[in-house]
């Protein structure tokens, strides 16, 4: 790895990787800056000829007047987009925190201790990863109706936890397994198990834990199937459910693209963060 110049194949490969990464996103995000006519044009336009920000104003509930006097009316979905943004942030934050608090000790125990029934208990945790949302949707809905949880953030948090806990546990168990056997040392020094965990293991595993947290956050942030049924049309609507209003019935590709773009921003910032920690997150 100590060659001073990049070989041609690597430069090409990086270029291909970047194209592969950005082209599909660009293809739709460009609509956010185009007019309806431009978007509909055939053959498709490669870029906005007169980029404008109308869609971003519209999805936040503002009219936008273009230079030529055309008025782009505010979207009636604006309320829900803003509510959705707030709720999505809230739900994802709560889910992430709860997931981490619960999963950290769990993963630690499964990764580094031996005790009876370990295999069976682990299987029980992982079973819930396997449940396809389409088959539990109706039962969940019925349960939620009885408990009064339809259209509430709390209900959504609970259901999202059933997705994040097993996935994050799965990843963290692998990660903890790979840490050096520090406990023995700590035990010899007479530390309590909890102390070792909180003061030694957690700081050692910081990067991996943060990365796992990010993964939990994204699973929650991107959840759509349950949200579509449980919170659509309520004050607890989340961003993906609110956004899907642009997808059906009347075409509003510009506003759809603008809100998709918006929904990508928080995860993008997080992705940058993830990249910084990449060298330290050896899970295997």
């Amino acid at each position, binding site marked *: 790895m100590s060659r001073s110049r990049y070989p041609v194949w690597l430069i090409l490969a990086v270029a291909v990787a970047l194209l592969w990464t950005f082209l599909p996103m660009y293809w739709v995000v460009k609509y956010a800056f185009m007019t309806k006519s431009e978007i*509909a044009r055939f053959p498709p336009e490669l870029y906005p000829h007169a980029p404008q920000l109308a869609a971003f104003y519209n999805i936040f509930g503002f009219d936008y007047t273009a230079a030529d006097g055309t008025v782009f009316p505010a979207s*009636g979905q604006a309320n829900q987009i803003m509510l959705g943004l707030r709720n999505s942030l809230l739900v994802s934050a709560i889910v992430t925190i709860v997931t981490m608090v619960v999963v950290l000790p769990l993963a630690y125990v499964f990764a580094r201790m031996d005790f009876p029934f370990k295999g069976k208990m682990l299987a029980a945790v992982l079973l819930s990863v396997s449940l396809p949302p389409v088959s539990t949707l109706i039962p969940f809905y019925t349960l939620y109706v009885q408990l009064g949880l339809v259209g509430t953030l709390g209900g959504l948090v609970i259901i999202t936890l059933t997705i994040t806990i097993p996935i994050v546990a799965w990843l963290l168990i692998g990660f903890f397994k790979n840490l050096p056997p520090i406990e023995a040392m700590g035990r010899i020094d007479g530390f309590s198990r909890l102390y070792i965990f909180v003061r030694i293991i957690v700081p050692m595993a910081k990067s991996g834990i943060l990365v796992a947290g990010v993964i939990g956050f994204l699973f929650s942030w991107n959840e759509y199937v349950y949200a579509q*049924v449980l919170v659509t049309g309520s004050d607890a609507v989340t961003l993906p459910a609110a956004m899907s209003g642009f997808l059906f*019935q009347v*075409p*509003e590709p510009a506003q759809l693209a603008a809100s998709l773009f918006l929904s990508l921003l928080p995860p993008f910032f997080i992705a940058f963060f993830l990249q910084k920690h990449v060298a330290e997150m050896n899970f295997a």
Partner: protein
Amino acid sequence: MTGIKTTRRQAVAMLLGATALAAGGLPARAEDLAASSGETVYFRGWQFRTDVVQGNVDRYNSEMGGNVDYATVTGDYPSIMEKTLIAKGDLDVLYANPSSAVRYMGGGWVKPASELPNGQEIADAMYPNIREAWSVDGKLLGLSYFVTTRGAMLVNMKAVEKAGMTAADLPTTWDEFYDAVYKMHEAGIENPFLPHWFAEYFGVSWGFVFEVMNRGGQVADPETHAPVLTADGPAGDTLRAWKKLWKSGIIPEEVLSYNEAGYIDAFRSGRYAFSPQQLYDIKTFNDPAQSADIAGSVTLLSAEKQSWGLIDSALYVMTNRKRSAALESDVEKFVSWYGYKDQDGTFAVANRWLEENMLFSAYKPVMESDAARDSVSKSLMKPEDYDTVLDVYASAPYPKSIWNVVWSEEFNFWLRDKLFEFLQNDLAPEDVIDAANAEMERLNKRYNI
């Protein structure tokens, strides 16, 4: 001009079997419509011009002291609403297509509009054919949101002229239509036709139903719901025409995966000469701000020889969940204000829909006003199209035989799948027709009809 207008309007009124009498009833007084319970009325709809709806609701809330909570429900609307109804969730007034409304009625979740204090007056203000379409066992299911024609055959004159044809060459029946499509293709238009084959629940299956009805056929008996499709009748003709069209390769396959947004945008691009679309969308297609490439050149096929499309409509339906007496009365007041007349006695909401989006109403007074004519005319390619629009609207059939029955949506989904299979797996038209008849019989049996 004025003369034509009057006779046309009268002609339409007669076509619809309307009486010349204006709807009766005095304007309601404000206190009759003011909310009093202090409880929340939950109003849900699909996503269409939510800005307009929100504006209307805001007006009710501020002028009538209402406490109406409005939100859109996105995604698979009819299914999600059905779940809410089953669960008796927080829902008082909702949008519904007639077929869904009939199903909800069958589930026992609906409070019919006939039970409103002014229910009779509301029913009397509607065109009789639409009132009948919206009724089950003599009960009116809801109030008028809109009535339009889905499948009005819109024409992009630019493309037509490019193929060397003129307005005089435009077809007037489905058979002529297919001939014209092939002729245009030979004249160098690569994709003359965007058929109603998209993937929504109101896509390909409705496309089949309206073509059968436009050709003079029926899918089932309107009263007994017994299947009546025949391979040598309109249904067979429709399927054979579809097969030929599909095999000719001039229909882009991707139509079969479009949602409605994709379907509208595809026609908006100007790539196609013909497409059966929502009648009111002629307004968006002729609007330079929204459809620069075809604006001002979109007209529609005449309904002189046969109808085009079918009546697509939606109602405001009340649920019958348990409510306090005060809230019950608030719901009635709100739905009457919103779906009928406001405190000034005007059809404020219906008029606004006509003005903003060319959504037609079931109420005679709304449709027969001068304001209606003005607003519609603005959206058309040429003034004469106004008459065609009203003709197409007035002559569109309503598939009562398969919509006003509890299995409506189930059959609709079955039909959608079967038609896709027919196209993609090259089934024989006779087999599809036999299977469709058998499926309707099975459903009749299952629901004891």
